[in-house]
């Protein structure tokens, strides 16, 4: 680029209105061009002299007074232009506070849901332990599902299916009526390689059963727990057996529920 073209950029450069890239390019040229460097210095000097000569050069006469109408206008109050609602500071503050409150509420709600669920599972775990420790763990002792299921008739406000034994390793020991949080439910007891597994079937209602969506697995005090909800019933499988054993029995229960 010739000096004539560079000269077009010198005022922009002196006024610090060139971009970083443009400034760098101009400075590169100035390093090798004494003529443009002199022209740049002259522009800077003129700018400085102009400011010194013109800034504050004129002031109003001592008699000068602003018109009374101006002060009347100021006293009436300058009407600020209406701002969009979202731009107002107090609205922004309020919105921030609401968002913060919602976050806190959602967090508390989530924590409470977890807390309620954990508490409910702990109570069912206690029931399972108590059952396995009992000398009479079941009310109806039978490995025949056609005996166990009818036994609950008239005792529960709901019904459920039991899995077919088939080639399954799970052996039905029987069932018993339980009361969990003031509502009747069924507890089925299965045996798998000397391990006992409880299947709780409870009516789904807020506060009485562990609230959760989908299949949830957990471990409490060494016990494996799997729970899910289906057709208004809450299923909870608990055992000291491995999580996979609990999961397999859960799968059998889910298949039976669809039959």
């Amino acid at each position: 680029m010739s000096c004539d073209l560079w000269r077009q950029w010198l005022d922009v450069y002196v006024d610090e209105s060139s971009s970083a890239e443009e400034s760098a390019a101009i400075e590169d040229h100035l390093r090798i061009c004494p003529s443009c460097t002199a022209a740049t210095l002259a522009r800077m000097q003129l700018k400085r002299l102009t400011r010194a000569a013109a800034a504050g050069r004129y002031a109003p006469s001592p008699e000068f007074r602003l018109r009374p109408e101006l002060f009347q206008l100021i006293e009436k109050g300058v009407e600020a232009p209406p701002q969009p609602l979202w731009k107002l500071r107090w609205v922004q503050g309020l919105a921030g506070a609401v968002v913060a409150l919602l976050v806190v509420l959602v967090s508390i709600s989530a924590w409470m849901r977890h807390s309620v669920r954990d508490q409910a599972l702990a109570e069912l775990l206690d029931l399972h332990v108590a059952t396995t420790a009992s000398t009479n763990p079941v009310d109806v002792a039978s490995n025949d599902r056609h005996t166990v299921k009818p036994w609950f008739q008239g005792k529960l406000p709901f019904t459920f299916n039991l899995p077919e034994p088939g080639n399954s390793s799970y052996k039905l020991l029987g069932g018993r009526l339980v009361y969990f949080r003031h509502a009747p439910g069924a507890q089925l007891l299965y045996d798998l390689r000397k391990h006992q597994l409880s299947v709780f079937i409870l009516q789904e209602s807020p506060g009485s059963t562990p609230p959760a969506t989908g299949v949830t697995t957990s471990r409490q005090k060494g016990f494996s727990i799997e729970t899910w909800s289906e057709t208004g019933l809450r299923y909870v499988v608990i055992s000291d057996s491995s999580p996979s054993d609990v999961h397999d029995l859960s799968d059998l229960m889910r298949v039976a529920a669809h039959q």
Partner: protein
Amino acid sequence: MPLFASLYNFAFWLAQDQAAAEDLVQETYMKALKGFSSFEQGTNFRAWIYRILRNTFMTSQAGLKASALVPLDGDDDRPVEAGTETGTHVTPESLLLARIEQQQIQQALEQLPVAFREIILLCDVEEMSYHEIGLALGIPIGTVMSRVSRARRAMRTLLAVRDEGVAE
């Protein structure tokens, strides 16, 4: 009043008359207060009020006369032709400018066409950015760039004539 001193100084440079400058400032504040609802909060207040003053001047008798006297020959966005400045290559400008006194600068400013004078004042005295100048004068940045360049060249020409007696 905000910006009173600098607005008055600018008004005087434009109007070149004390009474006219005082009226211009009064009128500017009146318009600003009455039309404050048109000012968009968060935008550039300085550019906004300078624009009011400048438009008030340009629509006054003195302003119309001043702008009609010396037409700008198309400063649009056209790049400035370089290399036509007096003494740029003959005499180092910095040496020349070093001998120039304040009064000569003031006289040169007074002789500039009003469009050049106002842009020099906004750029060099008020130290506005090109963006702010664009807002105050209601022209695009490209025009600001070319007009600043032309105004400075005109200044240099006026000063060179005085100092060196060399006509462009």
